[in-house]
């Protein structure tokens, strides 16, 4: 245990022995993995492997049955969702969840990490600092032109970018993206890969993705999950040639 502890010190995120069981079914079973700072890690695996559940556990949406999640040396399993966000973990959901009733500007503004308490939100002023931050992020996510559009009018791909932007403006250390290119057109995929490359200059990113081409484009390392456990881990080439992975996931 003490060895593990000292080990977790060097990593941005250290997941150890993580287990969650839903009525006896172990969706995630004694899972351990470690993320280096500024790393892009992609989690792949067949449906039901527990990929999304891992993200849910890290961001606090689901409570772990046992195990530990250390982020920057801080135990996350005991924190509430908004406290986890404040420690620097941002989470993007699989289906784009943006605030459709608000404009793109307001979506980003609401995500701006200031005025998070009730009174803070009441006293929140749209000052130059906020406007600059919003405009900067809008440029990164290709939505400068759409700032005053209601989010409902965006395309599927733009909504995905907006949600990524909503994470970026929070300035998290760790970004978790659940299938960011699902349902995107080829051009949108390329732009998203470009976007992720920009993001990873100063963020650690944990991505769930199915598109192997895309995975190959972005990943530093790949973790393959199967039935709640790590099946294989390493570079994309290593993982692709691993017979266990070919057996359960990639197919012959």
């Amino acid at each position, binding site marked *: 245990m003490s060895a593990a502890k000292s080990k977790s010190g060097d990593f941005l995120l250290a997941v150890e022995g993580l287990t969650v069981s839903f009525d006896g079914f172990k969706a995630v079973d004694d899972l351990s993995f470690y993320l280096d700072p500024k790393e892009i890690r992609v989690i792949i695996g067949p449906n039901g492997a527990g990929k999304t559940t891992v993200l849910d556990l890290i961001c606090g949406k689901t409570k772990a049955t046992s195990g530990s999640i250390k982020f920057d040396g801080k135990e996350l399993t005991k924190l509430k969702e908004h406290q986890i966000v404040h420690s620097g973990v941002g989470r993007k959901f699989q289906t784009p969840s943006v605030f459709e*009733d608000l404009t793109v500007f307001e979506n980003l503004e*609401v995500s701006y*990490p200031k005025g998070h308490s009730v009174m803070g939100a009441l006293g929140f*002023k749209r000052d130059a600092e906020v*406007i600059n931050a919003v405009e900067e992020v809008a440029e990164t996510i290709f939505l400068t032109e759409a700032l005053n559009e*209601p989010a409902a009018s965006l395309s599927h791909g733009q909504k995905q970018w907006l949600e990524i932007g909503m994470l970026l403006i929070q300035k998290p250390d760790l970004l978790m993206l659940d299938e960011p290119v699902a349902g995107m057109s080829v051009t949108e995929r390329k732009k998203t890969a470009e976007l992720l490359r920009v993001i990873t200059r100063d963020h650690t990113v944990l991505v769930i993705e199915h598109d192997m081409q895309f995975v190959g484009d972005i990943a530093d390392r790949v973790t393959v999950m199967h039935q709640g456990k790590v099946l294989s881990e390493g570079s994309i080439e290593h993982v692709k040639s691993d017979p266990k992975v070919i057996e359960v996931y990639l197919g012959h």
Partner: protein
Amino acid sequence: MKSSSPLKWFATREGLYYVALAVLLVVLLPLALDPFRLNMVGKYLTYAFVAIGLVMCWGKAGILSLGQGVFFGLGGYCMAMFLKLEASTPEATAIQSTPGIPDFMDWNQLTELPWFWEPFHSFSFTLLAVIGVPVLLAFVIGFAMFTRRVGGVYFAIITQAIAAILTILIIGQQGYTGGVNGITDLQTLNGWDIRTDEARTILYFVCVGMLFLCLFVARLVQNRKLGRILVAMNAQENRVRFSGYDVAAFKIFVFCLAAAFAGVGGAMFTLIVGFMSPSFIGIVASIEMVIFCALGGRLSILGAVYGALLVNAAKSGFSESFPELWPFAMGALFIGVVLAFPNGLAGLYQTYVMPLEDKIFKRNKGAQLEAKPAEKTAEPKPTAEKTPDYDPMIDSYSPEKS
């Protein structure tokens, strides 16, 4: 911010809607109606306080409370307790076996004023309690429910149960509360007779003033980031949570805000009507309040005021001529709102009347449009927290129907 020219705001479209409401309530109705009818309008307006709270709580944040009568009643009872104590001087109650306590206590063989009545000798305590007691209860309910993530229909049912419990409690504890009759025979407020026509007219204007105060508080909240978070929470609760907000705290806040409005409305009700009874706080009364809000437009605070006025006026009109038909008319109205125009009168107004207004004022608008860009170049960044195409009736976002 708009504070640089507060008067200008009244010339905006939104400002004009407020001016129109003020003219209606402060000038037209008092001129057109006799004191008796005006007093009735005052009574309807006390429900508008609740409806405004429901717009914030239900329309914006998506928290449907079927127990707003509880908060209305608590505010009303606090005021009634003060007035009752003032009316129960030892001289005025000399014929009782225990002079100096309210008459219904004497009838119920109480020989001493209960401890929780004591502070209501003080007018300033009463004013605090009118808001404080409903807010405190709302906080307790909100804390218990929202931190456990109870929401939606479960929350609605629980609030309804609380309305039932409070009614039963008040009726059952006759000696302490006046029972089913409520607290009646209220006479003076700090020595001022509230039963004269003159006093009732003044109270009407006080009520209108308080209503506008609540409208501006609600407007402030909805135009700040807080208001946008409430709307965002309604549609994407998880996204708000994972944007770093403690969703429960925001829900508790808006529920308490709605309770505060309702409490003020209840206190005004007691003053204007002259008594308070459990029939105004129970399940039926609470559901009626939701109907006022729904009919007026659950997304529009101004719509809620009109909703409360119109439904209550219709209720009085119907009840005077066909008392047995009213419940059916009310039911039909509610079904109509839900099926045909989910955004209520405000939604209809926006769809049908506002384009007409646009047409009529088109000629004038040319001048306004010229003035507007000039304003914008002076202030290139949107400093006021509004979108450029701010829509006063439905607010800055489109109705969910579309």
